[in-house]
């Protein structure tokens, strides 16, 4: 068992290092430039609401930057390993497929945590530079963003195993991201609809993860603390996507 856990950790570490080496610097530079540019604009336009605008803009930008990278990474990581034949090397050793997949997923999630932490620190530094303190519920907002990204990353890994290209994985995952944020509205429409539309909407409610549950960014004040249900939901949704991906990976021949 210890050997298997070591295998998971080695794959995760390798996946994380590869991500850090490749594209991080460019993304951080883009984030920093956009955040500083926006802060100058916000200062001029929002006047007395500058702190709120800067906080909201920064948190949204952090999430979108991390989402772009997480989706790009998750949709291409397995495809790339298959194309470069690296995956053959891994499976020629005593590494079971579940451990390989768990390692890849853990590596991607670790990358997401690292991105959120670095961008969060850059954002807080910018806020301090403009004379503002840490916004209320900031850590909850970042934790909520991580939970959303964990669900979408695991889902994108699953989709990448049956989709024909990285682009189609990105599109399918993007659709899930947006519909996940519409979950409360879908529920509202399901309650109002009748007939076939109601059936379709009710089925969607069961299959689409409710990203609003994690959306502490949009909640005000003390309401932004994430409930216990959020922690439970993220665990089972990530596990569900992992099992689905494992089912497909087991059937693949390398």
């Amino acid at each position, binding site marked *: 068992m210890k050997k298997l856990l070591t295998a998971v950790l080695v794959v995760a570490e390798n996946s994380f290092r590869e991500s850090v080496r490749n594209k991080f610097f460019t993304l951080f530079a883009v984030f920093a430039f956009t955040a500083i540019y926006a802060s100058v604009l916000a*200062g001029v*336009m*929002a*006047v*007395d*609401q*500058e702190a*709120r*605008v800067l906080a*909201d*803009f920064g948190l*949204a930008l952090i999430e*979108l930057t991390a989402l772009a990278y997480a989706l790009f990474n998750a949709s291409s990581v397995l495809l790339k390993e298959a194309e470069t034949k690296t995956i053959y090397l891994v499976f020629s050793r005593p590494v079971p497929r579940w451990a390989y997949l768990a390692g890849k997923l853990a590596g991607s999630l670790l990358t997401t945590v690292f991105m959120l932490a670095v961008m969060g620190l850059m954002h807080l530094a910018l806020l301090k530079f403009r004379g503002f303190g840490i916004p209320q519920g900031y850590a909850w907002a970042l934790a909520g963003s991580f939970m*959303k990204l964990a669900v979408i990353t695991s889902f994108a890994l699953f989709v990448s195993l049956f989709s024909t290209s990285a682009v189609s994985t990105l599109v399918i995952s993007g659709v899930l*991201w*947006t519909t996940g*944020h*519409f*979950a*409360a*509205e879908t*529920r*509202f*429409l399901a309650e109002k609809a009748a007939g076939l539309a109601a059936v379709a909407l009710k089925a969607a*409610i*069961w*299959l*689409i*993860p*409710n*990203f*609003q*549950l994690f*959306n502490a*960014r*949009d*909640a*005000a*004040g003390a*309401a932004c603390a994430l*409930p*216990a*249900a959020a922690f*439970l*939901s*993220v665990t*089972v*949704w990530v*596990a*569900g*996507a*992992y*099992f*689905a991906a*494992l*089912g497909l990976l*087991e*059937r693949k021949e390398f």
Partner: protein
Amino acid sequence: MPRFILYAAAALFAWTSGAAVSYGSYRSPFPPPSEIHVPVQGAAGDMFALAFGARRLFADVWFIRLMQYFGAPEFEKAEEAAADEERAEHEHHHHHHSLEGGKYPEFQARALHILEIDPGFTMAALYGAGSLAFNLGKPREAQAVLEYALKYSPKNWKYLNMLAALGYYKNAEAPQAVADALAPILKDPDCPVMLKQQAAFLNKRIGNYAAAAAIYADIAATSRDTAYVRNAERELSRLAEKAR
């Protein structure tokens, strides 16, 4: 049973369990889609706000647009007009101020739209209601904005105080009552500088110069809006001259 089926069943079970947990515990604090009225500029921004879970950010954008729509404050003109209006009211027994009545026809719809996107944006509600009542002379529209805000934050004392101030204002009761109702809100971080300005002006008008000076000093020290800061500094020096 093939392992693939087992994995698929486990995935489906986990996925639906997540949905069950999520929907059992989540009640949306936001207005339903039927309450979101499509603004004149189109619904694209609202779609992004909902699709990316960025209601606060897009409410900020709508708030900036509202301030741009309303334009820069013109203190001298507004205060002179208010004083003239008040004199006229006393002479003709009219009840409502109307500094710029009939102007800014979209103001209320725009203020309400911010709350439709983010009902927790207290400052926007106070700014919208305050501008409608005290600057545009539309206290009924201001009341509607506050009532909508109260629907999603029924215990928000700032809205209740503001409603009380509006009540006194509409009934043309003593300006002192309006100033007293506004006083607790002025110390709150959510208080828009426009409302502070209005309270300072009211206090100045009723001869409560110490209170007016304290509010102007607060504006000068805390606001990032240079127009308000310059006006507050000007008023402070005028009040200092009067005190001599």
